[in-house]
């Protein structure tokens, strides 16, 4: 899992998973990286958070690979107001 992969290779191997990349290339203007080494990966975000918390690198990238996986008949609405106190 320490092999440097292109984004196309990552998409084939880790579709619909959260991945953490180290030694990554990610042009500032782009929404997605172009290459990197996959340090951890998981289908569930909770499992991913647990794995990624172990032996934290100083610099890494979190990416979800593949299309946004919204449940069927779901519309994502993020309008949120804030109450503080």
């Amino acid at each position, binding site marked *: 899992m320490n092999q440097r992969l292109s984004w196309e290779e990552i998409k084939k191997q880790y579709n619909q998973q959260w991945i953490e990349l180290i030694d990554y290339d990610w042009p500032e203007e782009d*929404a997605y990286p172009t290459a990197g080494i996959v340090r951890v990966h998981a289908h569930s975000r909770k499992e991913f958070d647990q794995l990624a918390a172990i032996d934290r690198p100083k610099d890494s990238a979190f990416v979800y690979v593949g299309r946004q996986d919204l449940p069927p008949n779901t519309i994502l609405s993020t309008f949120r107001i804030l109450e503080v106190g």
Partner: protein
Amino acid sequence: MRSFTFNPIEATPVVSGILSGPVGSIRITLVFDTGAVLTQIHAPTLAMVGYGLNHEIKKAVMVGAGGERHEGTLLKCGKIVTLGQKIENFALGAFDFSELAESGIDGLLGWDIVKQLHLEMDGPKGLLKVF
């Protein structure tokens, strides 16, 4: 002028940002969300770069469009770089985004940051032009 890309086929426009904290930095994906009053990030992601109780400003509750309430905290963030802008020492929301995270989202780039930008969106081409 700089152009930043997003995928117009996706359900939401997602841009990337580099979140920096006391112990490191993580590049993350955020929904470009003018409907969120405040930038918000998944609490475990914030913890991984060193944000904790000593950065907390106060408790906070986010209220969604349907009235649903989510408890979290307002904390002082050291730095985030996104859309070519460096935003430092600002307040952001730390909430559990586990449900949203399963949809490929690490947080929301909210109106507090978006309103600081002079930008133009080309939706069909998936471009955000920042002047």
